[in-house]
Each structure stands twice: as C-alpha cells, then as structure tokens.
C-alpha cells in the first residue's frame, strides 16, 4: 500500500465524489453531438501514437539506465511509522511545517469556488426572484 492510506482514501473521495460528479454534471448539461467530434480522429492517430511511443520508450530507457539509491535512514524510520498511523504522521507535518501552504491551498480552493460560481452565474429575464430588501421594508 506504499504507506499512504490517507492519500488513497482522499484521492478516492475527491475523484469519485467531486471531480467525476462535476464532469458528469457538465456532460449532462452540454448537449454535444458526438458524431461531429469523431471527425479527423484518424488524421491525428499516426502523429499522436508516434509521439506517445517516443516519449514512452524514452522514459523506460531512462528508468532502466538510472540507478535509484535506497534510503540510508530506512530502518530507523520504519519503526516509527509502525507505531503511528500514516494519517497521524501526515497531520503532524501538515499542521506544523506546512501550515501556511495548507492555508494557502484553502484560499486557492475558495478563489476557485468563487470564480466558478461567478463565471456560470447569469441573470435571466422573466424569472421571479426574491428581493430581500424590498421584502423587509414592505408596508
């Protein structure tokens, strides 16, 4: 499991619960003609496959040739990670050393949320809406 149980669960929740549902909603909302999208697919197939193969085999060559050194502190650290869970250790780092970055990522998420709402918001004519100011000061 690569000692990353927390990340495994978070990835599952975020990708299945948030990103996949977001994509599904957008695909549902857009009425796309799929036949049009398939055009020119075969034109780009040779070039795409060629570039893909070149990069793939290049990477494999690099991995085969390179030597990955094992960690020097492995035995000492393994005993520590056996005592405490992965989530505990991750929180220990995330809320101390990387606290500012953690907060910054929260701000980025907030900005993304505000931006997404602002982009997709539109005022439509002829829709009855609640005007709270008027409602309160009604005679």
């Amino acid at each position, binding site marked *: 499991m*690569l*000692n*990353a149980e*927390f*990340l495994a669960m*978070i*990835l599952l929740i*975020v990708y299945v619960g*948030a*990103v996949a549902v*977001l*994509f599904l909603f*957008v*695909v549902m*909302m*857009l009425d*796309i003609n799929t036949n*049009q*999208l398939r*055009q*020119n*697919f075969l034109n*780009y*197939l040779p*070039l*795409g*496959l060629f*570039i*893909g193969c070149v*990069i*793939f085999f290049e*990477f*494999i060559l690099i*991995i085969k040739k390179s030597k*990955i050194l*094992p*960690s020097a*502190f*492995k035995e000492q*650290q393994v005993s520590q*990670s056996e005592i405490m869970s*992965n989530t505990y*250790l*991750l929180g220990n*780092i*995330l809320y101390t050393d*990387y606290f500012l*970055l953690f907060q910054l*990522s929260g701000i*980025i*998420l907030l*900005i*993304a*949320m505000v*931006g*997404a*709402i602002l*982009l*997709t918001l*539109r005022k439509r004519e002829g829709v009855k809406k609640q005007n709270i100011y008027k409602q309160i000061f009604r005679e």
Partner: protein
Amino acid sequence: MEIPITYYLYLSITIFTIGLIGVFLNRKNLIILLMSIELIFLSSSINFVAFSNLYQDLVGQVFVFFILTITAAEAAVGLAIILIFFRIKDSIHIDDINFLKE
C-alpha cells in the same frame, strides 16, 4: 515482499503517456482535454507517493495533497469556462475558440 520502485514508475509513465496521447489525438473535445490533463497530474502524484515511500519521507505525500487541491480547483474553473463557452458558441470544439483572432 516489497514491490520495486521501478514498477511504480512504469505505471506512472503508462498513465502519463495515455494522458499525452489523449491530448494529441483529441483536437475537438474540450472535456476530454481536461480529463487528459487530470491523468497527467495523477501520474505525477504516483511518482511522488512511490518516492515518498522509498525514502520514508512524508513530504512527498504532503506535496501530492497540494497537487490534489490545485487539480480540483483547476477542474472546477475549467469546467465553468467550458460551460460559458458552450453558452456563447453552442459547441465545445477546440477549433471554435478563435475569438481573439477576429
């Protein structure tokens, strides 16, 4: 038995190449382009976690955490942009994005 790190790297490369071929082959659909970019992000995350385990250093996992945040934000904003693009042009073809040329 412990799995050697090279296998994780091969998996990561395979996912990266799938994402890259997705970007190259698909000249029409913006949503598939976004999905391919997500795949590339994920392949880099696999690398980070694999090396984090190899060197017993949790910083790699923290980095994946931040990558995840950025990916989620990017997907949300990207899909919102696709949505308003569809509202204006009534299509999501990449060829139709030429406002600046006109």
